[in-house]
């Protein structure tokens, strides 16, 4: 959109292209002739030049060290050894998992007589070689209370 003070022959887009050296031959000549006779466009070009020249140029976002690190990262991605280690790792994991599974199956404990749930839970925790955590203890306490309630209920109904 042209400014009110611009004449109909003004071509603002051409000034941008002129600034960037993107006009050739007759087009360039046309702008140069037009500038001689148009004060509005002369001013516009001066403002355009100062605006675009003020934009920071030549900045670098990455230091040489960061660029080197980037290069290494990219190269690591394309090296065959980057992709291959997945297979042996997977193989060893599978072998270890199979061995653990076999040990569990072969050393499975024989069935034990029916025990109250709290004792079973404690025994299993003991087999696993770790202490029952707070939540488990709380559950055991609830179960014991339930047993006690059932006993009391039985006593009440029989009495």
């Amino acid at each position, binding site marked *: 959109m042209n400014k009110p003070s611009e004449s109909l022959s003004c071509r*603002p*887009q051409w000034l*941008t*292209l002129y600034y*960037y050296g*993107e006009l050739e031959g007759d087009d360039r000549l046309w702008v140069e002739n037009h500038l001689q006779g148009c004060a509005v466009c002369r001013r516009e070009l001066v*403002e*355009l030049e*100062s*605006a*675009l020249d*003020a*934009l*920071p*140029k030549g*900045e*670098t*976002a*990455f230091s040489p060290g960061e*660029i080197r690190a*980037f*290069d290494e*990262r*990219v*190269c690591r*991605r*394309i*090296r*065959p050894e980057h992709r291959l280690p997945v297979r042996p790792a997977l193989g060893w994991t599978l072998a270890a998992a199979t061995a653990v599974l076999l040990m569990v199956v072969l050393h499975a404990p024989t069935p034990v007589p029916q025990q109250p749930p709290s004792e079973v839970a404690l025994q299993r925790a003991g087999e696993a070689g770790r202490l029952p955590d707070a939540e488990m203890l709380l559950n055991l306490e609830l179960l014991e209370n339930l047993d006690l309630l059932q006993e009391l209920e039985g006593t009440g109904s029989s009495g």
Partner: protein
Amino acid sequence: MDTCSEKTLLARIREGDDTGFEELVAVHSSRILSLAWRLTGDREEAEDIAQEAFLRLHRSVGDFRGDSSIATWLYRTVTRLAIDYLRRRKLRKRIFFFRRDGEEADPLDFVPDSAVSQGDRFFAGEIRMRLDRAMRRLSARQRVVFTLRHYEEMPLKEIAAALDLEEGTIKAHLHRAVRILRQELKDLYEELS
């Protein structure tokens, strides 16, 4: 890198010589990273885009006919990836409309140059921050065209070829981008003058 050494390098890479690709990365990475950063205004995203461009080049090196130079190919790929990213970002911004522009600016983008004084550093940082914000007002294509012409000094014909667009369209994008940036940075220019 001249055409001859580029062809030799490509031949080495095709034969499975990864050191050839390492050389290629070392030659182009600085400019490609810088371009990706200018296009996106985001360091992390720039690294991801630049890396993706190199990995795509490695995958397609067998089919690389050499119609264009490696640099042009990389520029084109980075530009397209950046346009995709910028469009996604704009879409996200529209969805999360409550997010302010200033919140998206990465402070690391404004890491100062130790060679300049503290006052200049502050002012340069301020300009960069304002410019970054103004650049976000541009459409993805406007931003890419402006960056390629203004910062990378790529001729409009090449930009048109890289983006598969008519040269006239590129000219219009450039002019609109310049107009928007001038409008957005108007008060800053007044301070400068």
